[in-house]
């Protein structure tokens, strides 16, 4: 049990225009930021809107800005996130705010589609299973990036997303990279065309904000660098 009996919490209320509202929440052992938000909603203000589902770091729906950092709130302990006994919880940066802590993820996921982040099978059902050894380089590269849960933390952390509204963003490009390394996929030329250019991988400044904040410890910057290499190779071969 923490020595501190209560926690001072500022929570964003409203849409893109709004204000922070102060709440006092009891401290609990092993309390997460999502626990705090839930306590506020259940005991202090039932009109508070926020999004969550699994509570165990799998669904990617509860990401918020906690004391200025984008985080998954269900797996962020209050002990780790508080500064001077205070907690400030706001919606994710770079997303339109629907209400309170709920962001509109539409554009974020539309960019996954624009980056051709969907598997396009090259084989038909009459073909045999593809054999992809776990030790293969392509498979290892895809494995390193595949655990993305689509939480939007990297997108919120990216300054290029902030100043270039068309930029596909680290999550969509990371997803495209997993498919570029999928030997079973039959849409590689289209995908490389979709992720190139100044709305795609070439806009990345390699600042690595995505890598710094990714709760799954993925490295979208490395995935984007991989895309730059593949796109360059395709351009030289005339395959772009």
């Amino acid at each position, binding site marked *: 049990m923490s020595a501190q009996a209560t926690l001072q919490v500022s929570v964003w209320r409203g849409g893109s225009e709004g204000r922070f509202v102060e709440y006092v929440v009891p401290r609990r052992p092993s309390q997460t930021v999502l626990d705090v938000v839930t306590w506020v909603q259940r005991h202090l203000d039932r009109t508070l809107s926020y999004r969550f589902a699994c509570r165990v770091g799998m669904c990617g729906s509860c990401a918020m800005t906690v004391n200025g950092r984008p985080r998954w709130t269900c797996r962020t302990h209050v002990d780790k996130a508080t500064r001077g006994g205070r907690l400030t919880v706001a919606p994710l940066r770079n997303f339109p705010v629907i209400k309170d802590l709920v962001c509109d993820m539409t554009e974020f996921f539309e960019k996954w589609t624009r980056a051709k982040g969907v598997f396009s099978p090259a084989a038909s059902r009459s073909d045999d299973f593809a054999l992809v050894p776990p030790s293969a380089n392509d498979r290892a590269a895809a494995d390193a990036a595949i655990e993305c849960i689509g939480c939007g933390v990297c997108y919120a952390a990216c300054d290029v997303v902030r*100043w*270039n509204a068309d930029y596909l963003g680290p999550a969509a490009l990371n997803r495209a990279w997993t498919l570029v390394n999928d030997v079973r996929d039959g849409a590689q030329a289209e995908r490389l*065309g979709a992720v*190139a*250019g*100044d709305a795609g991988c*070439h806009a990345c400044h390699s600042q690595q904000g995505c890598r710094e904040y990714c709760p799954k410890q993925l490295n979208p910057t490395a995935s984007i660098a991989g895309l*730059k290499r593949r*796109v*360059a190779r395709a*351009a*030289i071969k005339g395959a*772009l």
Partner: protein
Amino acid sequence: MRSTDVSVKHETWLWLGQRASALVLAVCVVVHLATVVLAVRGGLSAAEILGRTRGSFGWLAFYSIFVLAVAIHAPLGLRAIVREMTLWRGRSLDVATLATALSLAWLGWRAVGGLFS
């Protein structure tokens, strides 16, 4: 062929040009600075520099390549900054980029010629 296809190819080649010129510049800058630091013996004078470069086809080739790399790299970098920080896009920006490249190349090669002859 769609205009976006052309744009993607165009942007990719420009990106490649900037990266390739950066590779050349990395070598050229090191050689240039090493020459300044190590080869200067009797003080940094015009006479010593001209004594080294006049009639030297090696230095002529080296600095000509150096200027070419600068003339490719710098305008493309400026173009990227302009596109990120302003709303300027399209053909006029590409023309301005090309004009900057040609100006840098002309000024640079003129200076290199002056050191050689």
